[in-house]
């Protein structure tokens, strides 16, 4: 990806992210949003991130798309740690250690 394209992405994401943050505060004001819209917005992050990550775990690019036990184990360890501890950093740490351990032994 060339540098100009990256700038375009950064600028558009900046404008878009600001727009999303500003839309109600600045423009819509005190009008109430329909309940069904809010209900869907609540699940955006949890609907996007798992879908993004699933193919990366099952078909990692580093192994040319071949399923890899070390990466799967790391993925499982990260998810479980995050769920149990509710702490992102602990989850990253456990996941990274599992990955490096797995790459050494598996």
């Amino acid at each position, binding site marked *: 990806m060339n540098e100009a394209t990256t700038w375009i992405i950064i600028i558009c994401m900046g404008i*878009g992210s600001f727009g999303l943050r500003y839309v109600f505060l600045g423009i819509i004001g005190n009008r109430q949003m329909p309940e069904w819209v809010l209900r*869907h917005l609540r699940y955006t*992050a949890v609907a996007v991130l798992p879908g993004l990550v699933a193919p990366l775990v099952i078909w990692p690019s*580093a192994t040319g798309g071949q399923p890899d036990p070390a990466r799967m184990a790391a993925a499982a360890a990260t998810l479980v740690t995050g769920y149990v501890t509710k702490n992102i950093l602990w*989850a990253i740490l456990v996941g990274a250690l599992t990955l490096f351990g797995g790459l050494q032994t598996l």
Partner: protein
Amino acid sequence: MTSYFDRTEFLRGVRHGLPFLLVVGPFALLFGVVATEAGLPVVQTLAFSVVVIAGAAQFTALQLMAENAPTVVVIASALTVNLRMAMYSASLTPHFGALPFWRRAFVAYGLVDQSYALAIIEFEKRSEMSLGQKFSYFLGSITPVFPAWYAATLVGALVGQAIPPSFALDFAVPITFLAMIGPMLRTKAHVLAAVVSVITALIFAFLPWNLGLMVAAAAGMITGAEVERQTEKARDSK
């Protein structure tokens, strides 16, 4: 002239914002490292953090850029991750709607997961707060966090340049995402939204331009909303 600065509230905000340094610092550091490992120059890596200030969206963009997804798809996917910001904006509007234009713009720029969570809890707990006190508290809560976010990104970017590639960092982004997903699974609706998203993404992985992700996101959102509606209906009918 109305005063928008209340020292006591500002300092209370700073105190409440400080613990988030422990989360935000390492997270921005990781973004800096991963972004430069993915080939981004230091300036662009820092620009990402200053302009976008949303970790999950930044990592999403990074991953899709590494996969050479079309520019439109990169932007659309990353912004979808950020849709929850619109929800925060709506939720804070009753509190900040009366601020002058540029102050509302400033609040919008400073609206992130942490500042939103602090603000909404504090405003609901202490309903007697004035507009100026609320603004000061909000300002205080982001004062430690934002400079740390920029600075840690820069440090990460400089460190990333020094790390040799092929350090199995290909999996840093997936691990970061997985770590973020765990704490999000608070209710049955969240869990099912995530499960449906995973299954749909794998089934539609063959679609070009990462459109499978868009399908998965829509399916996940609809699932979450519908499960929540059913759960509420079941509770109300009891």
